[in-house]
């Protein structure tokens, strides 16, 4: 991995320098949007970037914040923990005071330590690992739920509605995937179901045939996968090919159109827990249209949370009449904000007071329908 991350570093540093090129205006308020622009999970980065950019544009169109324009500085962390720290250092050196990001839990956690120490306000629209807000930090927020909400939602559905005879839980050994798999494990065990398998696969693994054979032999009829779509896509495809037709379920990290590109027909019927689809909320109709006019997809799970994160920063600057990040963090803790993801208020640890995950059925044509 070392070699890879070093290669990626050079590219990412290039991206940072390009980002710097855009900072000509001195009277703008810079917001770093940090997430994967390249790499295997760049699709999610797209959602985050398009949501954040839309918010910046719309706020600027309405005159900006206290007479200043916002400026989004897009930065690539490739979802690599080491890379994320390097990026966080860049943000510190550029004296940017606000960060919307990061996206992957594994890269958010190490970066958040730096932001807390340097007094930089961080709002992640996507990282769901509970540990990120359990560090006692004052500068760290998120506009998304956590795995200890998402895991139980999935776990209760499995135990209450699916009632599988033999359940297997697979994860990718990453902070996000394994974290959520453990939450599901805990929930189903509490409901009296003991998984016959709880195993980790490697990130980047392509051959799952041995694992599939084992699950087939054990008679597994339901598989929960904690991780991202590249591995699950192959797992699904190889399962169907081997004639292993158990139903699969995964967290929001698997829910994007690439799972259908990889798994094809095998992705039909996959269950996914996702944040509620904010694009169907009538209050967001105008915003959804704005995205569609730009030919961007407003339905991705991180689009609206990213929009909300930028808006909260802007509203806080207006409301608190300061650009001091530490005072803003304090203001955000004490107030509530009207955003596309609803009226939000934060707990002391920076988590949302309320956030709901909904279960969807995924289809082979990359659409989804809510499960009744």
């Amino acid at each position, binding site marked *: 991995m070392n070699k890879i991350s070093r290669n990626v570093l050079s590219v990412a540093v290039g991206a940072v320098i390009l980002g710097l090129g855009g900072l000509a205006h001195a009277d703008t308020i810079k917001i770093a949007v940090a997430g994967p622009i390249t790499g*295997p999970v760049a699709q999610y980065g797209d959602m985050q970037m398009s949501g954040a950019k839309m918010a910046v544009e719309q706020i600027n169109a309405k005159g900006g914040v206290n007479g200043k324009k916002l400026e989004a500085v897009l930065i690539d962390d490739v979802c690599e923990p080491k890379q994320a720290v390097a990026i966080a250092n860049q943000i510190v050196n550029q004296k940017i005071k606000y960060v919307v990001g990061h996206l992957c839990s594994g890269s958010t956690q190490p970066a958040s330590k730096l932001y807390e120490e340097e007094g930089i306000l961080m709002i992640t629209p996507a990282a769901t690992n509970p540990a990120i807000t359990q560090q006692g930090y004052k500068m760290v927020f998120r506009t998304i739920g956590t795995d200890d909400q998402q895991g139980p939602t999935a776990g209760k559905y499995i135990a209450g509605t699916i009632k599988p005879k033999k359940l297997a839980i697979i994860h990718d050994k990453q902070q996000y995937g394994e974290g959520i798999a453990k939450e599901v494990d805990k929930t189903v065990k509490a409901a009296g179901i003991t998984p016959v398998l709880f195993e980790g696969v490697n990130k*980047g693994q392509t051959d799952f045939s041995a*694992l599939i054979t084992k699950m087939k*032999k054990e008679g597994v009829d339901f598989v929960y996968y904690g991780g991202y779509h*590249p591995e699950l896509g192959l797992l699904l*495809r190889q399962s169907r090919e081997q*004639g292993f037709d158990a139903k699969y379920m995964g967290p929001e990290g698997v829910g994007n159109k*690439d799972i259908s590109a990889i798994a094809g027909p095998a992705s039909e019927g996959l269950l996914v827990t996702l944040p509620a689809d904010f694009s169907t909320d009538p209050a967001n109709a105008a915003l959804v249209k704005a995205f569609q006019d730009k030919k961007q997809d407003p339905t991705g799970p991180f689009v609206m949370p990213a929009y909300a994160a930028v808006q909260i920063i802007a509203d806080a600057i207006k409301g608190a009449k300061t650009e001091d990040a530490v005072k803003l963090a304090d203001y955000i803790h004490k107030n509530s904000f009207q955003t596309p993801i609803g009226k939000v208020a934060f707990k002391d640890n920076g988590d949302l007071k309320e956030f709901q995950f909904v279960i969807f059925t995924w289809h082979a044509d990359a659409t989804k329908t809510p499960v009744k």
Partner: protein
Amino acid sequence: MSGFSLLEFIQQIINGLTLGSIYALIAIGYTMVYGIIGMINFAHGEIYMIGAYVGLLVITALGLFGVGNISAILLVTLAISILVTGSYGWTVERLAYRPLRGSPRLVPLISAIGVSIFLQNYVQLGQGARDVSMQPVLTGGWRFGPADGFQVYLSYMQVLIAVVTVAFMTGLTLFIARSRMGRACRACSEDRAMANLLGIDTDRVIALTFVLGATLAAVAGVLVSMYYGLVNPFIGFIAGLKAFTAAVLGGIGSIPGAMLGGVVLGLAESFASAYLQTEYKDVVAFALLILVLLVRPTGLLGRPDVEKV
């Protein structure tokens, strides 16, 4: 764990052999280069990655032109991929090895790592860093066993992988054993300076070795893109690491050793996943490597006089 099942065991052997065939094809590239110049070609994993990309692109393009015949797809894809990948192999040797022929051994090693980093980023810039995927072109297979119980599944694709692998390895073995250039290769492997003195163009032999290695890597790449249907610019790293392990396990420098090493590694990973935990498959694979090297420091089929100057 419910008890042992013979059918499951057979299925795991099929899984392991398929994986092992791919490892073996890539491993040969490492072992041949080592056999002749006594150095590891660290850009070989990237060569394989390029083979996989070319395979995927050609298959997708053929699909657009409406070519549905599987043997036509296979032949055209293999031909184009071998051509492109082979020229990359030749270029790597030309740029990263030949100008440094007389330098200390570490120097070409570093230049090969440089080429590896270059190729990764080059493909990333050209094709994007994202996963590129396609749907399988060859589906279906045979099922054996009770209709209501565990059925062994042998897909056409797995058979194809085995057949293509065996065909190319037989071809390579015959080429090395029978042809003029093959004899020259063996002579260089025995003693390069002496072979040079006796009139063999050793530079040409070395270039040929890189091209042959790249050819087999291209075959592996095409098979992987047909079987798994997912490539990204970073697949060469892990595949290269595994294949290098297979080459060392079998005895680096020995071609049959690389084949055996690949199969043993594939089976070890498959059985570790099946009878231990999937987490342990790499632990078992590398523990096996250490054990073999402790007992036989030259690998399973390595020659004892592997000491090279």
